[in-house]
């Protein structure tokens, strides 16, 4: 094919050399309606002595509509090919029709003297690739090449005016999987869209020629040339960046930083996550989140994280749409997400889209890959404590694929190194992921996601703890037309834990806790006009929580069975939002989400005397409600506003305001989330939490979008955040409202981020100044904390500095260095001591009046890839490094305790020494 094509060029050229140029004066008349090139040419040839030369395959999609009456040839051809990419050249009686460029029918200056025909410049590379995939183009183009002009819609030579809609999928050429979050934009007029989670996009463009620029995370930047005639589809296949030791990319696309209306949104792809050294060498999604500005945690060995002053339970953690209640394994040393399956994560901390709700601080979306639609592949990973397996492949080629991941721990060797008293303990976890995606037809896709995790630990054959997440989501994506599509999903989320002990026969017990959440949602996106993109939908969650069952175990047990009654509630919302591009420079997103929350029977609710502390003494009476009865309804709208103004191509200002409500609360009075904390639904005595946030940001890209800078400031208010009375009992408490108090909070801060996204040296530096305060000043709550004044929250760390850098020596070797500094978190310290109960004891200061020493840690890792030959059976990767390189003994906490009657202060450090790690991955 290629050779023929080249030859034809030469042939055309040689032909024309022999003829002198002359004007063809004969006038032509004709009437063509949707004529093919063959019809058109033969008609003209029959009316004249002209002979046409052209490559029929290039013109197969051209339809000519033309009425001419006694016009010269030039005018006829000019009209026929106006607004197309076709050109004509007339030499004597020969007419050459070409695509892309006109054949020059005159000799180049000095041609006969110096040049030989063999050296005629021909744009070979264009030609070479253009042939690829030609057959497919006829149906729905799978545009794989940059230099071909793809004709979209029904072609016509009529002048193109008005707009048309282009839609399609952006897919990975290797796996066939949709590429979410890739950005398609054109230069003139300046407009762009991003693909949704399935890689689907739809955009309105003026008819005519465009160059589409496509930028996707982890993919090579690419362009496609189109000629848009009418509404049509274009699927674009993009190639992965082959050099796998590539630059860190934090954002879905390079100019989204500046151009999107969203702010406080960060996306990390798995490659970036894998470059961040983790404690046991296994890439950790949640540890990566902690490197982002505005995200803190109370310390190591905790996977709870705090976003812009929010509590750890104020983050909605979604794995492919499934709510994960406990995102940690093994005392928080591992995140519950298998790094071999995760595609990317996205954290929304201020511009939370209206389709999300139910949590106050942030949404963390974790997206797993779709299975490879073309080939069976897999990988095996081996670390110090865990092993991983991942398999994927097509079930029906190009239509249905699966992906499966399993991870298990073999950590008991570590426990056997412990002192005798704990040698017989055991701790283990495993998790499984299954994803199936199926393309029913062009308009319908189905996605099924399943997740199961189990954690077990046992303390020296005494008390056994276990917890488990179970999730299943089914999504159906349907395109109604080019302007409207929907994603409808239904899912079940389960979380449970149990504690049991049988060491003491009389006290042997079994404690169980269970959350079941069934949810349904329908999300629609409607492209109203080029300027308006409307999203709307409904969602509903039915909660059923068994807050605790406490049962005797064995016949000797005297444990009284205790069952805290099941709680039920329905949380529903409808939302609508509009992204409105007012002008090229100014765009606004506005949305409203209306929440309706109902606490449902059967339930018995205590009624308390108004304006008195809730306690056993103030219970007036209680009301019993029947099953299904609505006991209490809270309803409130949430508003989401954000706007962007482009000061110039590389600099934009953004502002946002949003409000959120939360109806489910984590009850914990320990510093970090522990596996046995309980979730409580809002009821008539426990109000929903709500909060609002205003934020402002400046975004700048420079050096061809390779350096990104941003500054964001925010101010946030929290209402009805739950804190606890001294000595509160939270587990198996039938009257939790008597032990909790409402606090109010405020948080503010400034976040600075500087990123370099490409080059041998890449990475990011961030600095955050933030404060978070709480206060409890309601005298009716029974107990004032710090006399009703504001006090710093546990996770209030004013200064945080993060550096993540990656240097690539060669394609096979790269090193990563991470540095983290933060102010020590607040603690409550003893201010006086006294003797009581036979020993020295301490009196504590006001809550959180002091701080632990500042935190600093640096981690280092070396990533070694096997050779890069594409065609080999397996690809190997080694990952070695050191966590906490300097071995700094960062205080996790400080505490004062009495031992043998004397008070001593202690500082507890987790990971107090440099911890080496090694990880081996094999991909097949």
């Amino acid at each position: 094919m290629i050779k023929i094509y080249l030859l034809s060029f030469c042939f055309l050229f040689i032909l024309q050399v022999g003829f002198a140029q002359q004007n063809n004066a004969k006038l032509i008349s004709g009437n063509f309606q949707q004529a093919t090139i063959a019809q058109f040419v033969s008609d003209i040839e029959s009316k004249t002595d002209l002979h046409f030369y052209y490559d029929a395959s290039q013109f197969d999609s051209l339809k000519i509509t033309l009425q001419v009456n006694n016009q010269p040839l030039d005018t006829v051809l000019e009209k026929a090919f106006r607004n197309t990419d076709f050109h004509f050249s007339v030499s004597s009686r020969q007419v050459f029709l070409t695509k892309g460029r006109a054949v020059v029918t005159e000799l180049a200056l000095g041609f006969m003297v110096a040049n030989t025909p063999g050296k005629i410049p021909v744009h070979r590379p264009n030609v070479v690739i253009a042939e690829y995939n030609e057959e497919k183009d006829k149906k729905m183009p799978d545009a794989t090449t940059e230099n071909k002009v793809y004709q979209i819609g029904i072609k016509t030579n009529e002048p193109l005016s008005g707009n048309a809609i282009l839609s399609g999928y952006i897919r990975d050429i290797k796996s066939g999987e949709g590429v979410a979050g890739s950005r398609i934009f054109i230069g003139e007029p300046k407009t762009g869209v991003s693909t949704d989670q399935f890689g689907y996009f739809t955009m309105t463009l003026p008819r005519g020629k465009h160059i589409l620029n496509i930028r996707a995370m982890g993919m090579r930047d690419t362009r496609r040339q189109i000629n848009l005639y009418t509404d049509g589809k274009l699927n674009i296949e993009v190639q992965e960046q082959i050099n796998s030791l590539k630059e860190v990319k934090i954002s879905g696309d390079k100019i989204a930083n500046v151009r999107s209306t969203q702010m406080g949104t960060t996306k990390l792809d798995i490659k970036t996550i894998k470059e961040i050294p983790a404690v046991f060498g296994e890439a950790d999604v949640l540890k990566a989140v902690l490197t982002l500005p505005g995200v803190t945690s109370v310390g190591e060995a905790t996977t709870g994280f705090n976003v812009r002053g929010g509590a750890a339970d104020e983050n909605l953690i979604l794995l492919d749409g499934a709510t994960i209640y406990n995102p940690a394994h093994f005392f928080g040393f591992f995140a519950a997400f298998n790094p071999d399956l995760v595609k990317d994560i996205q954290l929304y901390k201020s511009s939370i889209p209206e389709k999300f709700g139910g949590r106050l601080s942030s949404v963390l979306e974790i997206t797993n890959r779709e299975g490879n639609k073309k080939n069976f592949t897999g990988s095996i990973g081996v670390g110090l404590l865990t092993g991983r397996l991942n398999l994927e492949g097509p079930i029906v080629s190009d239509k249905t694929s699966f992906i499966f991941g399993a991870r298990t721990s073999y950590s008991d060797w570590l426990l056997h190194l412990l002192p005798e008293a704990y040698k017989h303990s055991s701790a283990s976890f495993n998790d499984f992921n299954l994803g199936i995606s199926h393309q029913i037809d062009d308009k319908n896709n189905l996605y099924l996601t399943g997740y199961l995790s189990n954690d077990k630990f046992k303390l020296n054959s005494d008390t056994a703890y276990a917890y488990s997440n179970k999730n299943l989501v089914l999504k159906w994506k349907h395109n109604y037309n080019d302007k409207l599509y929907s994603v409808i999903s239904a899912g079940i989320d389960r979380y449970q834990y149990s504690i049991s002990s049988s060491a003491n026969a009389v006290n042997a017990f079994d404690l169980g806790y269970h959350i079941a959440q069934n949810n349904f949602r329908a999300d629609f996106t409607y492209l109203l006009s080029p300027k308006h993109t409307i999203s709307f939908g409904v969602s509903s969650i039915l909660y059923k929580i068994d807050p605790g069952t406490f049962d005797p175990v064995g016949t000797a047990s005297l444990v009284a069975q205790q069952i805290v009654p099941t709680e039920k509630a329905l949380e529903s919302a409808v939302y609508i939002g509009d992204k409105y591009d007012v002008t090229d420079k100014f765009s606004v997103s506005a949305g409203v989400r209306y929440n309706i929350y109902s606490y449902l029977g059967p339930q018995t609710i205590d009624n308390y005397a108004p304006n008195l502390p809730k306690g056993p003494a103030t219970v007036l009476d209680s009301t019993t409600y029947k099953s299904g009865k609505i006991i209490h309804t809270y309803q409130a709208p949430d508003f989401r506003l954000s706007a962007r103004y482009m000061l110039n191509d590389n600099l934009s200002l953004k502002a946002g305001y949003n409000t959120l409500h939360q109806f489910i609360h984590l009850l914990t009075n320990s510093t970090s989330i522990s596996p046995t904390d309980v979730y409580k639904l809002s009821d008539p005595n426990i109000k929903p939490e709500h909060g609002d946030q205003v934020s402002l940001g400046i975004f700048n890209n420079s050096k061809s979008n390779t350096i990104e800078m941003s500054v964001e400031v925010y101010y946030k208010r929290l209402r009805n955040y739950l804190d606890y009375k001294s000595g509160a009992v939270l587990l198996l408490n039938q009257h939790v409202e008597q032990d909790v108090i409402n606090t109010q909070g405020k948080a503010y801060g400034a976040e600075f981020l500087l990123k370099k996204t490409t080059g041998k040296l890449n990475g990011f530096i961030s600095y955050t100044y933030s404060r978070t305060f709480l206060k409890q000043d309601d005298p009716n709550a029974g107990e004032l904390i710090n006399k009703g004044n504001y006090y710093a929250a546990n996770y209030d760390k004013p200064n945080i500095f993060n550096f993540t850098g990656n240097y690539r020596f060669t394609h096979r070797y790269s090193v990563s260095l991470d540095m983290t500094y933060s102010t020590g978190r607040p603690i409550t310290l003893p201010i006086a001591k006294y003797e009581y109960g036979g020993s020295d004891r301490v009196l504590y200061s006001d809550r959180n009046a002091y701080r632990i020493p500042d935190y600093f840690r640096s981690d280092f890792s070396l990533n070694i890839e096997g050779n890069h030959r594409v065609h080999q059976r397996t690809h190997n990767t080694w990952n070695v490094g050191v966590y906490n390189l300097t071995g700094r003994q960062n205080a996790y906490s400080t505490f004062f305790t009495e031992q043998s009657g004397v008070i001593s202060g202690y500082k507890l450090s987790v990971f107090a020494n440099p911890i080496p790690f090694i990880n081996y991955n094999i991909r097949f």
Partner: protein
Amino acid sequence: MFKMKYLQIIVFGLLLGSFFSCKKPYTPAAVTSTNSYLVVEGVINIGADSTIIKLSRTVNVSAVVTKNPLAGAAITVESDKNDIYTLNEIRRGYYTVVGLNLNITKKYHLRIKTADNQEYISDFVSAQITPPIDSIGSIATGNGLQLYTNTHDPNNNTHYYRWEYTETWQFHSKYLSLYMSDGKEIIPRPADKQVYDCFNTDTSSTILLGSSAKLTQDVINQAPIIFIPSTAEKLETKYSIMLRQYALSSDAYNFWVNLKKNTEQLGSIFDAQPSNINGNIHNVANASEIVIGYISASQVQTKRVFIANSQLPSNWKTVYPYDCEQDTTYYASPGSGYPAVANNLIPLPTLNIPIVPFVVEKGPSAGSGFIASSNECVDCTIRGTKTQPAYWK
């Protein structure tokens, strides 16, 4: 109960961490309080035993001595029917009154007037009957002896318990000394000057609590009291423990649990944060003043048990708390002629005590003197008393 077990997670977390983590002494920059707060400790004893109330004030954390008794206060126990009983200060900060034998249908509280004219009262509390201790048992595990107690209330009325104990044990020093210095010379040790057999006593320093609130019957089964390592000197000869049991109201129990949480269990990974300790004592004039302590009114029930070394596994070996060795002390050291006995053993007080005489007849180390050792290896009275308690058997 699982709360106790939960503590193990913490310890476990720590130990798991011990592979990675560490616990280091920590002394923050001077944390001081300008105030010194009143501390009230004791129980209104409704039975025949004395009521003892201890008053003190808090000191700064950096202070060397924690004891800071408050003298000169006037304390009375008062009923809600206006009965008044006055306590006497028998030593600084230590106020007592003999068996009150109170009417258990009334409620009682404490009134304290300090020397600086501040007046404090505790909330009225009901008088509580304490059921007797059923038994004190022990389990020998691989590395020590776990003592526990059992009790029950047939009326299902008590539910919350607190224990204190006093333990006493007989022990002996490492070496039996047959000689002693009278300041002038070494004389045979008379029987009444023996320093080999002694007794020692200690009191509980942790808060011991038990609850049957989650059980269908008011039964406390094997509540742990103390764990004694198998190598402890306490178990060398004979050990005795006197356990005192107090019934608590649920309020009082919460106070003690909270105090225990705040002062004995803090600082590990999943631990609760420190919280306010709310007692039931208030300054009459200033309700917001911090006063530490909770005054309940109850009986005390006591029980004593003995554990002889012969009842324990025979492979348990006591590890003597000091490094000990015997050495020769010459009247005149061979070679130098140094008068070691006269200089090192005779002058009182002495750091070395003669054990037995020795004579080396020939050779380079010929001479005579006493085998001696340091006083902590010979004199048990350094850390005990020779007086056998009256109850010892």
